[in-house]
């Protein structure tokens, strides 16, 4: 479905005063079963369609559905939409919707002073307070004075509103999220039209449900318009985004689409070997739906089979891809060594989450950088790239495949739970303008050709990718050290040293395939902020905030972690201080210090949560002081 930004068709035109804002942050919070992810997703989609820039952050528990009403069961979804270019889901929430006491307890700290707090007052009964482990009704607390508290008997209003649809009480109650969404739509001046259409599409086979959801949404909107609790509503005008066709996309979707695109560009079909793990599983789910693109997905018995099957597929000439998260990546490291020894192209996607061990399975962290850089036996370098955000996932995976096939090497692409599940508008690329990925396989030799050397090297130091089935090129590859040229097993000391060197130099050659590092802001001066991975947005936003305060600070974002861009050392030398914010204990900082012998100011947070712009602004101001 394609839309154009045009005149809106609101439910009714609101009659109360309208305040125009530059951006808004809305957070829905409720029980895992309350449909908060859906409500958030719809608000994000509607805002994007309206022309805002958006950024989202789903925040859900590791349990499937912890007991209703408990703190463990709270699920949240935050949407940031703005009239300008934004890069983060927002530090502080302007409107918090709390569907029960547990949700309030878990989320109140995000609400800014004087922010709007909408609660379902039907849920603030003794039972639910107890489940949330609070003694007194928090709505009665003094602390509430700091907020614009709106008590709505959401459950009962919803039930009443949907009565005519004829659905049972259970389903009627489940429509609460649409009531809340309708209310938020009114408050933010969002047009419910596309959501109503979506409901019809989605529940086409259950007209009673569709009806109930529609009624709930409308009732919520009307409630905003009618109740005296709201004095005004808000508007965030469209942003000034570059022209083009847009859609919303999460990081994992973008990885899947990027893989399919890379497959097309290189005329290689995908073999995706993977074992389910949060937050990487959605890539499997997405790819499994695209068999028309000759994608073969293989849910292996474990992570080791996932990567080794992909290596087998790569040997056979396919685009071998595997993905996992921390604990699963740990299981793949032995086989990554095999891929390095066999010198086959392979993509390994690492969607980081909180560690160590099973850790915080649904929370983002950047603490697997050192694992993918160094977590293998022997001298086993490989290129490492990291996506800066959801849309970058698309580009980076194409770039990774380009490098993998050019150099005949496995390549790691890093993402994290925040990027994977977060969404932002993606300008749909013109694929005709993406250069193809050329791959050549050696052909059957003629009688007078020299003998085939599977470990001979081209100008990139890559070896030939000879495919089984080609007459005259039969050869054996293996995990023991191999003789340069012939590829036969070799224990010769000189040969080993030579091969270690060749493999390292080959990977280092990737530097010629990547762009020089660019800097946003002054090209020399007091302070450089250096980010990698999912902290891109928040760092850029912080630098912009600082800029507005009249201080010029530079920002550079690393997408290539190994090899590092050729000019990075020079860039670092141009600033008095370098600040590296990371969602770990300083992993990139260590690499930079070792490589460039420059001091680094590390800003480390290991909280299973993205940085706040505010934290960064504070750190920058401190560094400038």
């Amino acid at each position, binding site marked *: 479905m394609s839309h154009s930004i045009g005149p809106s068709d609101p439910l009714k035109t609101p009659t109360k005063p309208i305040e125009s804002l530059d951006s808004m942050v809305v957070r829905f919070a409720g029980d895992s079963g309350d449909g908060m992810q859906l409500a958030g997703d719809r608000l994000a989609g509607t805002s994007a369609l309206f022309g805002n820039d958006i950024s989202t952050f789903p925040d859900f528990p590791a349990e499937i559905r912890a007991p209703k009403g408990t703190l463990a069961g709270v699920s949240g979804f935050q949407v940031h939409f703005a009239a300008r270019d934004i890069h983060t889901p927002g530090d502080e929430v302007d409107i918090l919707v709390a569907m029960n006491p547990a949700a309030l307890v878990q989320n109140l700290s995000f609400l800014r002073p004087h922010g709007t707090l909408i609660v379902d007052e039907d849920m603030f009964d003794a039972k639910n307070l107890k489940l949330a482990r609070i003694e007194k009704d928090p709505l009665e607390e003094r602390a509430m004075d700091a907020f614009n508290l709106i008590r709505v008997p959401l459950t009962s209003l919803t039930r009443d509103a949907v009565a005519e649809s004829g659905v049972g009480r259970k389903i009627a109650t489940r429509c609460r999220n649409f009531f809340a969404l309708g209310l938020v739509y009114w408050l933010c001046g969002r047009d419910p039209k596309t959501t109503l259409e979506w409901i019809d599409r989605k529940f086409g086979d259950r007209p009673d449900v569709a009806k109930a959801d529609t009624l709930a949404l409308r009732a919520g909107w009307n409630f905003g318009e009618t109740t005296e609790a709201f004095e005004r509503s808000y508007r965030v005008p469209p942003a000034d985004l570059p022209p083009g066709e847009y859609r919303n996309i999460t990081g994992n979707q973008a990885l899947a689409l990027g893989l399919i695109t890379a497959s097309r560009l290189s005329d290689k079909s995908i073999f995706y070997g993977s074992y389910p793990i949060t937050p990487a599983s959605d890539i499997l789910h997405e790819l499994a739906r695209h068999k028309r693109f*000759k994608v073969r997905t293989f849910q292996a018995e474990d992570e080791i089979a996932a990567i080794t099957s992909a290596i087998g597929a790569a040997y056979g000439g396919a685009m071998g891809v595997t993905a996992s998260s921390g604990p699963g990546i740990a299981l793949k490291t032995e086989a990554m060594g095999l891929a390095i020894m066999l010198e086959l192209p392979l993509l390994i996607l690492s969607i980081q989450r909180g560690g160590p061990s099973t850790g915080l399975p649904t929370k983002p962290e950047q603490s697997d950088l050192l694992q993918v850089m160094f977590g293998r036996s022997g001298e086993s370098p490989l290129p490492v790239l990291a996506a800066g955000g959801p849309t970058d996932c698309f580009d980076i995976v194409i770039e990774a495949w380009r490098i993998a096939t050019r150099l005949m090497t496995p390549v790691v692409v890093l993402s994290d739970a925040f990027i994977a599940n977060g969404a932002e508008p993606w300008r749909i690329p013109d694929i005709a303008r993406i250069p193809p990925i050329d791959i050549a396989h050696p052909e059957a030799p003629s009688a007078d050709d020299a003998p085939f050397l599977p470990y001979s090297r081209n100008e990139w130091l890559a070896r030939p990718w000879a495919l089984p089935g080609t007459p005259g090129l039969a050869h054996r590859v293996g995990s023991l050290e191999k003789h340069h040229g012939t590829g036969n097993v070799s224990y010769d000391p000189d040969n080993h040293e030579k091969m270690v060197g060749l493999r390292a130099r080959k990977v280092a050659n990737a530097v010629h395939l990547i762009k020089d590092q660019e800097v946003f802001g002054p090209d020399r001066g007091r302070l450089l902020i250096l980010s990698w991975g999912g902290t891109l947005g928040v760092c850029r936003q912080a630098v912009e905030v600082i800029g507005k305060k009249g201080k010029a600070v530079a920002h550079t974002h690393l997408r290539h972690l190994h090899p590092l861009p050729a000019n990075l050392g020079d860039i670092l030398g141009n600033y008095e201080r370098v600040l590296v914010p990371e969602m770990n204990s300083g992993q990139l900082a260590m690499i930079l210090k070792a490589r460039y012998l420059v001091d680094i100011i590390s800003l480390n947070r290991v909280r299973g949560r993205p940085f706040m712009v505010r934290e960064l602004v504070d750190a920058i101001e401190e560094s400038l002081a």
Partner: protein
Amino acid sequence: MTTSAPTKTHACTSRSTAAPAVKPSATDFASDQEIRWCPGCGDFSILAQMKKVLPEIGVRPENMVFVSGIGCSSRFPYYLNTYGVHGIHGRAPAIATGLKTVRPELQVWVITGDGDALSIGGNHLMHALRRNVDIKILLFNNRIYGLTKGQYSPTSLPGHITRSTPQGSVDAPLHPLSIALGSEASFVARSVDTHTAHLGGILRRAAAHRGSAFVEIYQNCNIYNDGAFEYAKNQSTRNDCLVEVEHGQPLLFGAKRDRGIRLDGLRLETVAITDDSKSEDLLVHDERAPDPILAMMLARMRYPAMPEAIGVLRAVERPVFDELVNEQVDAELRHDGAGDLEALFRAGDTWTIE
């Protein structure tokens, strides 16, 4: 790379495996590599049989891939002039699964040892078999870890004194064929390294099977476990200690084929055949029995209580993983046509900013 065969949806262009114009010979299958097994190792005889059988299979050398793990046995691929992957310990079935899935027209063999397949690699073996991936798995069972110099393996007998069990092993062994049958294997067979004719026949049968073929080969490690299968190899005892099972044939053994095997309830027992009429009571082998029960009973006959079964214990048809995977892809392509990137990008809501 030039292409001569249609490629359907396969991962990359490739040649058909149809019988070639000029039939390859055994020497076409020999590689130029120095063989690095201990002199006298049972692996030599298996290799020799393999080189003899391969030219008869009707698949050109370049359309075959031998995949292995780590172990003495796993050096096998180096000695054949086909394509080959000497992988990492225990993972050959998984490597082979990926390869076969993207290149179903290749013939893929897996060479593994009792440690490689049943110790570290047990899980991959189990899953390749249950999926019925069209790969031929040869397990060289020498009841020892050869390459790491003689520790006991999952098939070593209880009490076996090895470098890691100076007081004797306390682990009950696994029976490779029981594991295979428990994993729903569609083809299960056994042979002996030095029974060249028998082994050759089994290799041919394995090659011809559609789906996973699992073959246990008794193999002598003359350095660390010499004589483990002496009863089965020795000319004077082998006829009493082994029974060759053949589909549709009664189970007869003994040098003079004067003993047979009979079913007594759910137990097997040996009987002496004094005059010919008696052989009517004997159990008749049915490799195609839909349930793996008979195969299980035969597989579990253990020397010295019973003669051990060699031959094809089970060979049934069931859907083949790599075919099914590719069929799903083909079906979608047939039904909906090749995927359109532009449409894929635009799935869901889009909007335009001018």
